[in-house]
């Protein structure tokens, strides 16, 4: 089994915030998706959600800016870690991720292990 991090990226909503109803639906879909991964015994780490409101970017020369979104429209809003036999398996999990229905996308990256030389 190998571990892969699924990194969730989204962009600033252009059409305004989703309605409470839509958010409720997204949350339900999200929980079902995560539950489905755990039901296959492939959830290695529930990961974390990253705050949209509290964030800073630190740059050389003592430059600190607000949030990650001043220059990029796209930002990371969370990650989980799955354990699968190969990257194809991890990708097929990512394919079902509800973030794809709301304009986001998923990056799949293998966790480098000590005996990895790639």
């Amino acid at each position, binding site marked *: 089994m190998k571990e892969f991090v699924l990194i969730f990226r989204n962009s600033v909503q252009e059409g305004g915030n989703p309605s409470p109803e839509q958010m409720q639906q997204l949350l339900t879909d999200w929980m*079902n998706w995560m*539950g489905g991964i755990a039901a296959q015994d492939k959830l290695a780490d529930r990961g974390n959600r990253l705050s949209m409101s509290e964030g800073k970017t630190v740059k050389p020369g003592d430059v600190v800016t607000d949030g990650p979104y001043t220059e990029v429209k796209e930002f990371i809003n969370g990650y989980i870690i799955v354990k699968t036999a190969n990257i194809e398996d991890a990708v097929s999990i990512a394919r079902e991720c509800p973030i794809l229905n709301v304009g986001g996308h998923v990056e799949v990256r293998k966790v480098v292990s000590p005996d990895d030389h790639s």
Partner: protein
Amino acid sequence: MNVNNEHIDTLIPHLFRQEYAKITAVLSRHFGLQHIEVAEDIASETFVKAMSHWAVHGIPASPAAWLYTVAKNKAKDYLRRQVLFESEIKNEIKGTEKEAEQEFEFSEEIIADSQLLMIFVVCDPVNPPSTQICLALQILCGFSVEEIAGAFLSNRETIKKRLHRGRVNLRTNSFQLRSLNRMEVDARMSAVLKTIYLLFNEGYFSQNEKVFIRKDLCAEAMRLTLLLVENQLTNSSEANALLALMSFQSSRLNARTNELGEAILYEDQDRELWDQFLMQKGYYYLGKAFADKVVSKYHLEAGIACWHTTGGDAKWPQILQLYNQLIMLEYSPMTVINRAFAFAKVYGCKQALKEMEKIDFPQNSYYHGLMGFLYSELDVGQAIGHYRKALALTGSVAEQRVIAGRIERLGGRADVVA
């Protein structure tokens, strides 16, 4: 005041079980747990005396108090003999005389404290869970070897060996415990809860057809959890959640089997038979469990059991979400299967089958039972195939009857498996 002698046969086994464990716990704490056998002998002798005395003189007004007095005297006699023995050999030992005069007190508080200590002694991860449960039944609940064998559908010798090995392991480890403190409670609380949880499940999901045995196991598990909840040191939110879970489950015990001991599925149960008192207890302890922010698997399972006390289909989305959380917290095939059932209730069997695509427990009768259910309206051939596998895999006669009924309703023949 004397109770009618006719009651002696029915009163004593019940009393024995309860009081035996209490007397053993209190005396063991006095003697030191390495001498638990002495405490058990004294408890047994106390009951032998009660049997002969009560048969002639009638049952005393307060049987428990009578037993404690006799146990106290026997314990003092034992110590006196010990001291005599010791001093004869060693000629003169200072301090032992004084020890012989120590008081054995059986107040409610001391009984509860002693039993609590005993719970922590018995639930030692040095022993596998199955052994811990046997030891709990014997030492904490006063079950005989035969009764434990009966409950486990096992034979006497196996249980005897298991208990012996378990005690040997405890002797080198936990029997040194004298009293509980915060550190020990923190270190072992989760093991204690797990053992009690398994003890309860042994009763609740047992394949044993004797309903009264299963009820006994459930009741004992609840009694032990109550001991935890009633002591400040062990009154954790997990313990409350566990007690809530057990209360909800127990409230349905009577509705789960019919007069013939056959299993009745949740959906077909007569809600009038659900025990209102236990349900109220469940709500009460669940409220206490959620007083702080801890969410353990006991919280989630209690939440699921709580939703099951409500009628209609509105509960299923909530139950599914709780199962989602539960499976993320701790993987277990049974949770996978239950989650898929809830999924089917919310999104239909077709979607649930999609969820199950990558999941396979070929040797699990519940898995095949679920698959049979999911296929029932979509592919009768598949459904019957799975039900037949479930039928072959389950060891429970009650379960077999239910599955056979389902196969017949689908128009299949159930008699493929002996």
